[in-house]
Each structure stands twice: as C-alpha cells, then as structure tokens.
C-alpha cells in the first residue's frame, strides 16, 4: 500500500475520470475511474514512464493498451480515492476484469484540455534550440496549448 499525490486531471465528466499521480519516489501513474463504492472512488492505475505518458496525452497511445501492455511487471494498482487521499494497492493482471478496463479506441485529445475553462494556466519561458523548433511546435500543437507568440519567437531564434 502506498500513498499517491494527484498531479493532473486529464478527463473530467461529473467527476475526474482520468487522472495522473505520483508516489514518493516520483513514479508516475495513469489512473482511470472504474467504480464508485461507499467509501470512495476506485481507479485502475498503471505505472507509466514520462515518454509513454506523453504519448498518451499526444493521442498516440490507446488507453486500454496502457493497462494491457504495461512497461514493467507488477505495474498495476487499484487506487482508492477518499477525501482527497489516494491509496494504491498492487493488483495482479489476472485480477483485472473487463469492467475495470476502457474499451478499445480511447485516444486522448489534448485539445480538450485547452477548452477546460477551469484549467489553471502557468506561463513558462523556454529556450528551444533552433533545430528543435519543428518538434517543439508539433508538441505545442498536440497539447492544445495556446502559443500566440510562438511564430514571433521562432523567427527570433532563426535570426540568431
């Protein structure tokens, strides 16, 4: 049993449906709501690396595959959320039922995050090497982030 810290809500519908969390060691978890019990909500969690999480957020990874094909053994957890506490218990692959899994074909669309009127916006200043500008602009586009001054910044980088 380990305690997790909520880091982001990726999908909200009446309650958070898909969230990300970390544990004390910084390991990331992708968690999907599958049940409401009397003592709290139950999420199916999977330990996930940052590149794979980014692939999911970028719409390149089917949510179901994240659970059926985890990157490491013993990566699945049942996460109970009660009063803002996230308690994760390991769960065996054989204990997972179909009712806990998303259907085939759920690809996250990061543009939905940009439509969330309650989304908290932080502003960062990044120094992007000129040779990475296309990759960076693709990432910005996929995430649905607002970057009105991006073109101007890139012209400045190109000029340098």
């Amino acid at each position, binding site marked *: 049993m380990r305690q997790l810290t909520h880091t982001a809500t990726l999908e909200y519908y009446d309650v958070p*449906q*898909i969230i990300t969390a970390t544990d004390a060691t910084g390991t990331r978890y992708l968690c999907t709501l599958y049940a409401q019990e009397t003592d709290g909500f139950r999420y199916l969690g999977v330990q996930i690396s940052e590149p794979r999480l980014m692939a999911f957020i970028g719409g390149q990874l089917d949510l179901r595959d994240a659970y059926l094909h985890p990157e490491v053994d013993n990566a699945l957890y049942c996460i109970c959320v009660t009063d803002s506490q996230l308690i994760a218990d390991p769960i065996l692959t054989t204990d997972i039922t179909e009712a806990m899994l998303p259907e085939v074909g759920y690809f996250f669309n990061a543009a939905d995050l940009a439509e969330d*009127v309650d989304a908290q916006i932080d502003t960062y200043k990044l120094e992007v090497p000129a040779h990475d500008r296309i990759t960076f602009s693709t990432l910005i586009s996929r995430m649905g982030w607002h970057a009105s001054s991006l073109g101007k910044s890139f012209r400045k980088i190109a000029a340098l």
Partner: protein
Amino acid sequence: MFQRFCVYLRSIIRLPMLIPYKIVDYISEYKPEWTCVMPVGCPPEDVLVPSEHPFFRLAKQANTYTPDDFKSYAESDPNRNWGQMLPFAVGLSLVESEAKARRNLKLPMFRGYKGILNMLAL
C-alpha cells in the same frame, strides 16, 4: 455592457456562444430556480451562459433519456460527506463536442451507457 453587446450580437447573427456573466447579474436578470439546494460557492461567481449553444451528455438509453441521466453524484449518494467537493458533486458535466462525448462512452464508468443527448441551450 459586454453582456448587452453579446445579446445584441446574438439578435443579429444567431451564433452559438457562451456569454460571461457575474452570477449575481444572471440571477437578477433571469431569476433561475435551482433544482436542489446549492452549497456555498455553487454556482461560482463567474459563469458562462450558453446562447444557442449545443451541448452533449451521455445517456443510458440509445434513443431516449430518463431522469437518471441528469442525476448528480450528490443526488445518487446523499448521505456521503462530500466535504469540499460538494460544489462539484452537485454539478453535471456537459461537453461541447459530440466526438468527445462518444470518446467518453469508451471509459469504464460509462460501459452501461448507450446514447448521447444533444441539447441546445437557448
């Protein structure tokens, strides 16, 4: 002033839009009746009022809707202590995109859901 402009704009071109309102102004202008007792802080001070705006909500049946489709978590579990989450628990989600609604049908919590309600907020 901005709201009046939006209403004027709407009268000329009937475009779907979300008009920002202060909740006190909205209540004094439209005198809404809530369907349940609202907790403190709900609705929030700043709201977006839809005008000719389509919304989508998941439904348990394919071709019709029932009151259960509009039951909040607070209504379905009234004895639970929701704490600070109560304003969220009394709320219902609507999405602006049919594609997003259809995508949500693939999530485990909506396995029993078979339809999507298309609502037009006037």
